[in-house]
């Protein structure tokens, strides 16, 4: 990704913003710690969100992002720009793999952060509670999806990757990705409709 925003007040910052990710990784290969810091500052929020969407827990998401960036620091030559893959696409794969490994190692826990959020929000108005309940239901439904369906949905729907890029991240063909995406959305739609029907029955 190339950020071409120029900052006339802070020329150093402006210079940092026009450096391409791929050039920064090349500098990291030479041990340039400043280049690493620029990449970390640039993408921590984005990949934290991606990690959170996979694991549903902000503490775990922090660990995942940190591990992924440290992998980049210790072994930057693993990214091969000559293959024509964007840095962000490649790094999604790193974050996804770290998250999957972490998920396999951890013991099953009850629910996600959103449930805690809901517990804290008991004093809020009914409308806010309904929105919160919907978020909890949505998060739980997504976390319940089979792993690959969840990853396909996250990458295409929430991270905004193209089908081709998401297929690269998951190491599958585009057709297989579309199938995963379709099944994920169908499963979520079923749950959503079921929930709406139950809601109407309770209120009617």
């Amino acid at each position, binding site marked *: 990704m190339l950020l071409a925003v120029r900052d006339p007040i802070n020329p150093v910052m402006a210079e940092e913003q026009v450096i391409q990710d791929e050039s920064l990784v090349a500098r990291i290969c030479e*041990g340039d710690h400043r280049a*690493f810091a620029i990449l970390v500052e640039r993408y921590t929020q984005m990949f934290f969100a991606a990690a959170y969407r996979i694991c549903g827990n902000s503490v775990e998401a922090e660990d995942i992002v*940190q591990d992924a960036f440290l992998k980049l620091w210790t072994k930057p030559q693993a990214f091969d720009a000559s293959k024509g893959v964007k840095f962000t696409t490649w790094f999604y794969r790193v974050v996804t793999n770290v998250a999957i490994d972490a998920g396999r190692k951890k013991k099953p826990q009850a629910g996600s952060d959103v449930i805690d959020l809901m517990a804290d929000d008991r004093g809020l108005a009914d409308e806010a509670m309904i929105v919160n309940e919907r978020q909890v239901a949505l*998060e739980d439904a997504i976390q319940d999806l089979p792993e690959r369906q969840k990853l396909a949905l996250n990458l295409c729907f929430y991270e905004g990757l193209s089908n081709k890029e998401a297929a690269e991240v998951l190491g599958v063909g585009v057709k297989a990705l579309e199938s995963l995406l379709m099944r994920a959305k169908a499963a979520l739609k079923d749950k959503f409709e079921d929930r709406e029907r139950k809601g109407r029955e309770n209120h009617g």
Partner: protein
Amino acid sequence: MDERIFDAYLKNRHTPEAPSNLSARIIEASRHTSQDAPLEGVKRWLRGFMEGFVLPQPAFALAVLLIFGTSFVLTASGVSLWPGIGAEDLSAAFEVGEYWDAGDLL
């Protein structure tokens, strides 16, 4: 169901902000981590493999016995363990070795 309503429902997903000091923590952690040399990963794997590879003692003893036993039987029955060199040639070489003296070279 209307696709737009469903998509709006999906878009409603809650994602928290990363802690403001997370970047700084990652950068700090990297200062205490050294970079791998290009073959460092392979070396580390090999070292880990060798350290983790434990051959049970009875199996090790059996393997050594088998190797020595086989070579003894083959040598005794006149079969060479060295391709292209007969057992007689080898014994001749050892015989030469027995009579060799450092003074021959001086």
